[in-house]
């Protein structure tokens, strides 16, 4: 608003101009909301992100399966006794992202590892049963994770995240 008003003290005219400008500004900002909000996940996408159930019975010892939840690959590993013993023997303080194996698995189900299979470096998908630590190996930039999904080597800063899940029964888990 270009006005000719150069009075030293505020006038009624200034008030009108300021009020109009302020209303326009508020309206403009509020009007942006729907245009931005539409980018957020829509109702069907949110509904599709509901928890899923996974039957563990067919997964043999030493085997991994990959399931998808909310568009992310989830690795479910049926670890061998040897793998469990190895990852539990590692001193936690020596790890880049210290975490005990106990804190990443469920008590009484220590043979099961459930992790989101997305490398914490730049989002690639690591390959299971590869690398120096009998865990996961990310081919993109060489990050290595152990059988607990903890980062051991390479540029990845964090361990593979554990998704929210619980055991519904001994052979069935619910993810989400």
């Amino acid at each position, binding site marked *: *608003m*270009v*006005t*000719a008003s150069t009075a030293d003290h505020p006038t009624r*005219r200034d008030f*009108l*101009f300021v*009020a*109009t400008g302020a*209303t*326009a500004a508020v*309206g403009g900002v*509020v009007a942006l*909301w*729907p*245009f931005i*909000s*539409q*980018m*957020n996940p*829509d*109702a*069907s*996408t949110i*509904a*599709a992100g*509901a928890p899923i159930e996974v039957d563990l019975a067919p997964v043999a010892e030493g085997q991994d399966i990959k399931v998808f939840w909310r568009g992310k690959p989830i690795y479910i590993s049926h670890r061998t006794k040897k793998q469990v013993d190895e990852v539990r023997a590692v001193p936690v303080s020596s790890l880049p992202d210290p975490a005990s194996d106990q804190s990443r698995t469920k008590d009484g189900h220590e043979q099961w590892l459930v992790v989101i299979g997305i490398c914490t470096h730049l989002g690639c998908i690591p390959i299971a049963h590869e690398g120096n630590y009998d865990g996961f190996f990310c081919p993109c930039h060489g990050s290595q994770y152990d059988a607990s999904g903890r980062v051991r080597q390479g540029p990845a800063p964090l361990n593979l995240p554990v998704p929210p899940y619980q055991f519904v029964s001994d052979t069935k888990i619910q993810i989400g």
Partner: protein
Amino acid sequence: MSGPSDYQPSHPALKWFEQRLPIIGLVHSSFIAYPTPRNLNYWWTFGAILSIMLGVQIVTGVILAMHYTPHADLAFKSVELIVRDVNYGWLLRNMHACGASMFFLAVYIHMFRGLYYGSYKAPREVLWILGVIIYLLMMATGFMGYVLPWGQMSFWGATVITNLFSAVPYFGESIVTLLWGGYSVGNPTLNRFFSLHYLLPFLIAGVVVLHVWALHVVGQNNPAGVEPKTEKDMVPFTPYATIKDFFGVTCFLIFYSWFIFYMPNYLGDADNYIPANPAVTPAHIVPEWYYLPFYAILRSVPNKLAGVIAMFSAIIVLVFLPWLDAAKTRSNKYRPLGKQFFWIFVVVCVLLGYLGAQPPEGIYVIAGRILTVLYFAYFLIVLPLLARIETPRPLPNSIADDVLAKSGRAPMVSTVIALVAAVSLLAGSMGDARASEGQENPPSASWSFAGPFGKFDRGAVQRGLKVYKEVCSNCHSLQYVAFRNLAEPGGPGYSTAQAASFAAEYKIKDGPNDAGEMFERPGRPADYFPSPFPNEQAARASNGGAAPPDLSLIAKARSYKRGFPWFLVDFFTQFQEQGPNYVNALLQGYEETPPHGVTIPDGSYYNKYFPGHAIKMPSPLSDGQVTFDDGSPATVKQYAHDVATFLMWTAEPHMEARKRLGYQVFIFLIIFAGLMYFTKKRVWAAAH
């Protein structure tokens, strides 16, 4: 944009930039210092309104394209899911769909303004021709956009319009095949229309730049039609034109919002809520209201090729207007005969629009032919002749004199009245397309959801859901409604747990599983109400050949003729309840025996509200069939009312949100328009 800029940047950095790319100077000279005639009236704000509408259409269109799927099998559903699931999707879609109508309304006013005040005359011929090009591009864009939702009118409109080109001698059929990219209108057609619908607005924006450039070279015309002579005739664009345009735009937004929030389907055709079906043509194919006059001209000529030529000529003739009208006086304000013929021409255009919506039979055909002749006569006979025989009234000496004379108030009022009448007639005539059906109109029931503050009656929606589940769902599906919708605000008001347990009562077909087999599982909230039949063929086979339609859109897909003067009244009362009225009436309209003299085919039943009166569905409801927990009477009347309410909710789950947001927007816009009005008065106080 005329001549070198007088913009003098003060800051050294701006100076440095201005010497390398003088764009700030360009903006300054075009939109700030640019001199505008002092006597411009509000018809001149439609230029600004058009710029805003182009912007709105591009922005909402780009966003809709983020959610839309251009595939023949998915397009219809994706549009429905935009409206139902995307955050504010209903708002963006209404803005875009009603926006197209508003864009055309504004461009027509803009064009008629140009006609009345002689804005096409020297030296503004190129400016005018660029405008005609913009208009042609708009028509192409609007047509292709209307095809994208892939409803019945989309599909058949595309078929009819592309078939226009089959009139071309010898090459016609090849051209049509080329346009379709197939043997008929199909997926390739939809894909290319989507691509072009996205592209053309940017071409429009490009030509608009040329249009504005040409405008700034020759300067604006004005109501007096005399060229500015002295400084006193002009005011700088900012703040004078800017503030006036903003006020005009705000008033226009109020009008636009009326449609967006309270009658989003008033200007559209109900048939477009029926998915495209290449096997069935709608009873009457009607274009959107803004094409109706040209459609009437097309149908008035009994020869195919000549009809197509006549229709295109009706637009192309505008290009030659600057030379057809040789009158020395520019503005019709000073042309006693020119003014009268102008208004006759406006009436001719409106009547042509009205006829375009009528079935092409009887008196309508004859009237159409007369009006077509009159349309062309205005350009080819009246205007050239008037220049020779008319004696214009004396022109004011200057624009400043015109401002001081303060004349021209009366014609403006009459123009407003005439245009409002014209537009509502055009808009309302859409509903008349089914004029020849001769069926009885359903009586208007009273609905809790009608009007600006209408809300769904939760009890009625819940009872309607029960009737649907126990009766309707034996044959009909609700493909676009998910169980989770039952727990959403504005619906039947169930909790998430209630919706989940309702879903669990259904068996949903899922799979294939690890063994490659399909299996059934209990429904989940994210599932959609299933169809009782595995596919359409099975549904047809069980219902005597007629597939039961999906009911989730039925309340929006059914309409009936409202006729004069109801469509005018409907605009003010926001009447949008044809669908529920129809459903309600149909369910109660069965009669055991047809009235005397009426025979209906075997296997069908008499229903006085069904088009043609013979419906394949036997009366689905009888008294006492469904028991309500809340003690509502178990009568057909109650069932019909409740199920119609429920179906209205399934057709538009966000209706309450729409009306509530509309209420807030209206309060804001009215306050803002008031502030703008006083600000504008203050700014102009110095200039008058």
